[in-house]
């Protein structure tokens, strides 16, 4: 029975522009801007090294994901269109405690496995020089318990892909006074600084893993040593200035009190709450429009959102698209696209 001529479909396929793909046979190499799909032969040249997203049999390299082919030097890999966050050393992430275990916490950072936060990697109240004691191990829940949010830095990535975090700096630690949201991790562009102060007494932490924290600005740990608003905008653009933003030993002593692990939220005024909500909806709009999220775009988005008096209206798809359009036009005008 001839296979090729017996199958037909009762209605024609709607999309005509995929004709070229139907013609593509297994033996050809796809164009560089084409999408390859699992099981498709990428190349039969044995000279390539096989990277992520591929598998091989003898000389043939096949794709294992749907994505585009990347040929860098001698490494052939397929980058998937969508994927979970992959932790890398140095990433500033926001996470949620899922488990309290033996001298360690398990933290959900939206990766394939939960990250680990060792007891020795956190600041214990009482100063940086304080030593870990037995009783600390038994009181771990007093520091961080299941459900707490924190921001941390990825210290190492193990062989199996899971991450180890640390919060050994004052800018890291338990989060409070705010609201949590997620965006696709691919939209958060890696930069030197992920914590920004936004106008309206709001701060944002854009975790590289796509977890975002919006909160009322904490005056004492605000992201600039000088409480000058103009100065702080320049600083958070990522200009490197050694010594800036660091604190003296005495400041550390003050701040490593039990307060850093307190669960108590401050009183937040209605205006600040409104601002936080507005920023939340703006970030959601950026995520919907699949635009990369930066401090500049959040500010532009905030400006654009002011035309909507009712903050609740921002959750409508029309408003979201409106805001994204405004941001893009604005950027084009400024010439910084």
């Amino acid at each position, binding site marked *: 029975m001839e296979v090729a001529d017996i199958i037909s479909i009762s209605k024609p396929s709607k999309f005509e522009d995929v004709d070229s793909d139907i013609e593509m046979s297994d033996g050809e190499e796809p164009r560089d801007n084409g999408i390859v799909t699992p099981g498709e032969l990428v190349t039969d040249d044995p000279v390539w090294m096989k990277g992520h997203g591929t*598998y*091989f*049999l003898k000389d*043939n390299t*096949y794709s294992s994901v749907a994505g585009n082919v990347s040929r860098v030097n001698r490494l052939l890999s397929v980058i998937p269109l969508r994927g979970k966050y992959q932790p890398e050393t140095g990433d500033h992430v926001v996470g949620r405690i899922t488990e309290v275990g033996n001298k360690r916490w398990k933290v959900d950072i939206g990766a394939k496995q939960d990250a680990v936060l060792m007891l020795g990697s956190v600041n214990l109240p009482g100063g940086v020089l304080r030593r870990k004691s037995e009783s600390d191990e038994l009181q771990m829940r007093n520091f961080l318990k299941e459900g707490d949010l924190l921001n941390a830095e990825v210290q190492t990535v193990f062989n199996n892909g899971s991450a180890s975090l640390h919060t050994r700096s004052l800018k890291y630690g338990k989060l409070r006074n705010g609201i949590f949201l997620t965006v696709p991790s691919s939209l958060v562009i890696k930069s030197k600084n992920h914590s920004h102060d936004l106008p309206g007494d709001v701060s944002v932490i854009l975790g590289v893993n796509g977890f975002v924290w919006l909160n009322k600005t904490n005056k004492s740990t605000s992201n600039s040593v000088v409480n000058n608003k103009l100065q702080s905008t320049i600083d958070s653009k990522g200009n490197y200035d050694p010594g800036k933003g660091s604190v003296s030993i005495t400041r550390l002593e003050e701040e490593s009190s039990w307060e850093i692990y307190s669960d108590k939220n401050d009183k937040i005024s209605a205006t600040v709450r409104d601002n936080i909500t507005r920023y939340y909806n703006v970030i959601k709009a950026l995520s919907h429009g699949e635009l990369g999220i930066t401090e500049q775009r959040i500010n532009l988005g905030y400006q654009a959102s002011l035309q909507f008096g009712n903050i609740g209206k921002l959750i409508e798809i029309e408003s979201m698209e409106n805001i994204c359009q405004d941001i893009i036009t604005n950027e084009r005008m400024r010439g910084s696209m």
Partner: protein
Amino acid sequence: MSYHKEFIKNGERLNGRKLSELRVPEVDIGQNGELTISAGDTKIFIKISSEISKPYDDKPNEGILIINNDIDNDILSRIVEKSIRKSNALDLESLVISTGKICWIIKIDLNILNFDGNLIDYCILGIMINLLLYKLPNYDIVDNSIKLYNLDEKAPISLSILHIPICFTISFYNPSTIEMNLKSDEVFEISLFDADKQEEDLRDSYMVITLNSNKEIIQLSKLGGIPINSVEVLKLCEICYDKAKEMTQWIKDVVKKEEEKTSDRVKMLAAVDQR
């Protein structure tokens, strides 16, 4: 364990059988409806019992067949149901005494006594032999009640078996890598029949096929597991059919021998009576 797999790759089995060779089962027949089937160390006790009851409301002209399993094995239950009930091996319509009012319930109870691989095939084999041998007591309908006779008072009735399903579980082993199995055109997978427990633990996947000597396939289940070339599957079906013909003949011989034994016994008892 890998040395065992090496043997299998070379076509040899630790139990000395060929890859396509089945164990020869032994059947131990007790009283009416009691049967123990053993093959190697696998041993199953099957009991058939019958009762008078009312047919289901939505099936007034059919009797009732219930198959019970004492171990909670989904796959075994599903395949036994598909092979025996769904294929109508036992003619349920023949179990009706009075449409909508009185019918027989046939209950089959499976008791797994010892497991050394290949439960499914031997359960079905045992059930079929037992069904073929089972005798229902004869009856008379007096007014609106039913009078049952003992098995030796009036000649008992055999069950109406429409066909004999034979089941084969084929185990597959992948001698090389997954990539070879999926992308290479050559057929690599090794198939063997009637695996014992060791072989079952090692196997990569399996396929269960039930057919009868009328060249009908009753059911075929390959529910996941390593992919097998369709040409191989068809080849295996042909092999199974040949074996099914042999098995059917073997079953008929076993049944015939047992019936002769029973009729001899009856004749002997009758002779004693006459004196």
